[in-house]
């Protein structure tokens, strides 16, 4: 079942996931279909171009052989970002609106609008700040009010660069890893719900960390510390057990909370009920899409 369009409307949405095949791209496309169906105008971006590294000439040649799944289907009026090489062969009659700062491995990147329904390969800036600039420009100029970014794999820090963006996290669970996936979802949810702390600077035992919080940094935190604050959850590079150990001795908090839209879950070889049981009500309740391409609601979860 398509996700609820209202989750994405009139904002920048960043979709990321832990690994290839997590359903990130599929969820992004499903989100775009849902927003269009609800009457919204969509901009679709991706971070980099997975599977299209190399020179521009190679890219041109590859375009002809691009598998169906690499092509983003666009409707007239959709806004998108791609490289010069793919503009030439796009079937959606692109109208160039702007050129994105910086260059990609596939050449210059442009923001374009589809003049008719068709398809192209989405290629976005590899650097976070350029990705943020492109998304910001689309919204500022009013070219589209809803931006859907198919983000980089396992690069949660992107969310910190794109101020105000809503984060979605796509996972795929199979028979062999669904317990671990469920555990990771709960850990992520825990980090996302860390309290925001303001004005504690200067208090005894309060430590403000500007950069990332890694295990080695955590080990260096003095015994007397009462609280540690980081920029946002994406700056925490601790797994569940490391985080729990740290939180036993002090309070972990953030300067800024990230707007979390929810999880997209693709199940393969796992029953819905079994996964819900493994994930527990908190994580399962944050799932906004179960198999985005299912033709009927796979599961309804409340609470």
């Amino acid at each position: 079942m398509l996700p609820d369009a209202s989750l994405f409307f009139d904002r920048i949405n960043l979709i990321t996931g832990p690994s290839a095949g997590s359903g990130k791209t599929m969820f992004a496309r499903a989100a775009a279909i849902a927003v269009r169906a609800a009457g919204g105008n969509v901009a679709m971006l991706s971070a980099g171009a997975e599977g299209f590294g190399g020179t521009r000439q190679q890219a041109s040649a590859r375009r002809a052989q691009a598998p169906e799944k690499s092509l983003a289907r666009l409707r007239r009026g959709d806004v998108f970002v791609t490289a010069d090489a793919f503009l030439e062969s796009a079937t959606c009659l692109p109208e160039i609106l702007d050129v994105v700062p910086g260059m990609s491995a596939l050449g210059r990147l442009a923001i374009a609008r589809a003049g008719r329904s068709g398809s192209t390969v989405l290629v976005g800036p590899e650097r976070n700040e350029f990705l943020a600039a492109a998304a910001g420009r689309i919204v500022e100029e009013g070219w589209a009010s809803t931006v859907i970014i198919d983000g980089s794999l396992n690069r949660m820090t992107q969310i910190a660069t794109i101020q105000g963006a809503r984060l979605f996290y796509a996972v795929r669970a199979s028979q062999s890893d669904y317990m671990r996936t469920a555990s990771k979802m709960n850990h992520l949810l825990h980090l996302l719900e860390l309290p925001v702390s303001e004005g504690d600077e200067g208090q005894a035992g309060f430590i403000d960390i500007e950069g990332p919080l890694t295990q080695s940094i955590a080990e260096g935190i003095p015994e007397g510390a009462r609280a540690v604050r980081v920029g946002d959850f994406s700056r925490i590079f601790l797994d569940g057990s490391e985080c729990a150990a740290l939180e036993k001795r002090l309070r972990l908090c953030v300067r800024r909370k990230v707007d979390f839209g929810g999880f997209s879950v693709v199940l393969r070889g796992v029953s819905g009920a079994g996964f819900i049981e493994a994930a527990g009500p908190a994580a399962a309740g944050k799932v906004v899409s179960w198999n985005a391409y299912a033709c009927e609601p796979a599961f309804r979860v409340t609470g």
Partner: protein
Amino acid sequence: MAGAMSQEEKKQHCPGACCTAAAWTFARMEEVWSRFRPRTPYGKDYAVRRVVRSDPAGIELALDETEACAAFAARNADSPLTADKVAWHLARIPRIPPADGGSGAEFDISEIFQFKKFLWNYSGLCALLDRPMLDMFGMSFRSGGLLAVLDKGGSGPETFQIADGYDEGLRETRTAILALSERLAWRRAAQEKAVRESWGIGFEGREFVMVPMETGLVISAREGEGKAELSVESYDEHSCLVRLIPDSATLGLERERAALRDRERAIETRIRAALSGLIAGEADNFREYIAVLTRLDLAFARLAMKETFGLARPDLSARSLAIREGRFIPLLDECAARGTGYTPLDVGTGKRAAVLFGSNMGGKTVVLQTVLFLQIMAQAGFHVPAASFSSRVFPFIDYVGEGTARLTRGLSGFGFEIFALCKALRQAESVPALVAFDEFARTTSSEEAEALLSAVISRFSEGEGLALFSTHFRGVAREPNAQYFRMAGLDVRLAREAFSGKDASSPREAEAGATGAAGVMGAPVGASVPPGTAEVQAGTLESRIRRINEMMRYKVLDEMSGAAGQGGSDALEVASLLGLDGRMVAKAEEYARRGRVQETRYGA
């Protein structure tokens, strides 16, 4: 310092042969340069290069252009929208590729877009600027024909596509593609509807959908009956993936559309080549537009600096240096943040060398920084922060002092100074140079330092340029072609008043009699720091610096002006004010009186 250069900026920083990086850094230019904000990519490129010029005509032109922009703004004072529009167009100028692009080169559509956007904004600027401005910058728009052609592509002046309007064949092809696409969409919708009615499966625009395994098995059985409209593949043990199978009529339409798209692409390629040729034909115009735009952009950005900082036009035709109310903006900002007063600089010399003696913390270094700051700003084409500034253009500006020593490994502070001196000498022998020496040779023994410094002063005083020296070494030789100054130094009367509560004749004696810092710092110090405030009693470094600032007279005087013996280092008073133990200060003074450690007064 607030505006310290990042590593990336340092790599880019290249004041050029005219101004060394050491002089640039010493003058804290980066702190002001960071506020110089051209809007076009070309102006930004220029700003990154940190160009300091040595051609008088180029500098005067830059100053004239800034003033032309100021006059334009004044003429349009009643319509502020005009200035906003100019800024808006400048900010929207894109960087374009070289228009000639090599023989036979074709531009991508995103590049053609950039040419169109460039021309549209450039023509917009030409329409906004009045005759005096157009004449000043030699600005004209001669690419109306090209812009009109490019304007056919895209729904607005700042968008571009290979539009139907370029070729009748393209229009026909696209119309045919559209008609086929509509037929295909209709067929797809009809197929989806049939599947929804037959199987309850809704595709909702998706290429495939996932259905429960039971449904998939039933569809597969139907497939075996030869009534296939759906293809089914297993996904996992719970579900299947289902796709619509296009019928032969649909496949035929798709083949037809693909052939039309190939034709469309061929026409687009032809149009792109034609447009590329038109653009290449205007390569000279584009080069000129870029040059003009860069000057215009820089002039408006310099005007913004002039208005922000209240800058005045420098006179670079003089033979001597004369500064009236010169302001060193980085320090001015610091004083404002600290809530302390700032004394503008008045100084002048017609000699080839100027030597400045004075107190510790008395402002000698700031004088040198201010002179270099004003000179570099002027030679970068800016108006300067001074009531008046007369000087000449120096082909070489350098700094020799401790500040640069840390940049080079393997040399001591003194070693590096000598290394830098050798380089400066080589340059100064070939061109008139402005070189600032801040406490040169301060790290070696005073006797040898004085001798060496005397030799350096002598050499530079015979040159064609101007050398500025700050030093504690009062024993340097007096050269006929050099002028000698001193900082006014600590206001002894104020300093004594500060300690009057302790019934002492000097700050040092008061400090000696005090039981601790609070007693000293609690003494009346002037209006801006009320006595007895928590800050003063705490004796923070900030409050101590503020006290010294209040007692220090930051004025440059002729060496011989005022009472004899004035213009010493005031080192013991300053040390006392900075909180050095009073008994130690009193002991030092006793030694000083006896003349046994006279030289330590000039040491670090």
